């Protein structure tokens, strides 16, 4: 008998929330909007956040959106396409402040 392990991944394209993601209010709103999608996630499902298309990112927005996701999903949260300088710099400071690391690929 073979047993297949399926790795389910939920992909969140951040650009659908906007391309200039900088304020706490909009970060909070985006996190609230995400809740209806997250409630259907399965146990062990990977949450992939794709930054492709994001022009500007900031710690205020990131702290309202990424920090709670990191606290809930830990290493099941994966950040993708993070090469934008403001995304890189924001991830760095959020990691410093939370004392936790984001998984990236």
């Amino acid at each position: 008998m073979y047993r297949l392990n399926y790795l389910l991944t939920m992909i969140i394209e951040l650009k659908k929330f906007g391309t200039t993601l900088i304020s706490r209010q909009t970060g909070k709103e985006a996190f609230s909007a995400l809740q209806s999608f997250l409630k259907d996630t399965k146990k062990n499902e990977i949450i992939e956040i794709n930054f492709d298309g994001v022009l500007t990112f900031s710690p205020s927005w990131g702290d309202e959106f990424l920090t709670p996701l990191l606290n809930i999903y830990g290493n099941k949260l994966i950040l993708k396409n993070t090469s934008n300088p403001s995304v890189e710099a924001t991830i760095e400071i959020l990691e410093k402040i939370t004392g936790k690391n984001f998984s990236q690929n």
Partner: protein
Amino acid sequence: MESKEFYTTKELAGFLDISRVAVFKKIKKGDIKAQKMGRNFVIFKKDIGDIDVFSSNLFKLAKDWALSNKKFPDQFYCQNSGAFQARIATMGSLMIKNQDAKDLFSLLTSIAGEIGNNSYDHNLGQWPDTSGIFFGYDLNKKQIVLADRGLGMLHTLKRVKPELKDHEQALKVAFTEVISGRKPEGRGNGLKYVKSVIFKNPISLIFQTGDAKLILSGGSTDLDLKKVKENIRGCIALITY
């Protein structure tokens, strides 16, 4: 802020800090596009369009407002955070197309966003007189200016750190310690972010609150903090790159 469509020559002279005669000369030379209204010239806001006309005095306009609530052109005023978000997104998209700014646009937009949003977050529901911020930028002079007439950092941070004695201490704490003026909310990383971005990039910042002024120079880890004569109740920031 008023909502009429034009400025009088007297108002424009005031904004530019030049005489009315100098404004007339600029109109005659064609530097400023004006139209006759009755016996007087008026300058339509749509004709000013970009900020070139004002650019040499951008920082002065902001400072005059922060110090004394002096009137300034509407196009720099963002009454609420929504108006600021829209304008800063426009700045970002203009920077992408600008030779001098395109490599740094995401970081410049991001740090200006943190500074501007800080003003709203810390003063929401508590603005002493005029709510909102001054936000102007000049891609030719490579500068971004933000100012508010809020409570200032000392007042805000004293809530969580009552031992703070003066503006200098408050300003230092704001840029070096992870502390939130809106505790118990977990905030307080914005200005540390601004500092770390500036340390690694060719960007400089002058930031003043109360009588304390901070200068951060691109690539340097020094915090140049000093006391100055003029006392600004809220905050003013000049970003150059």
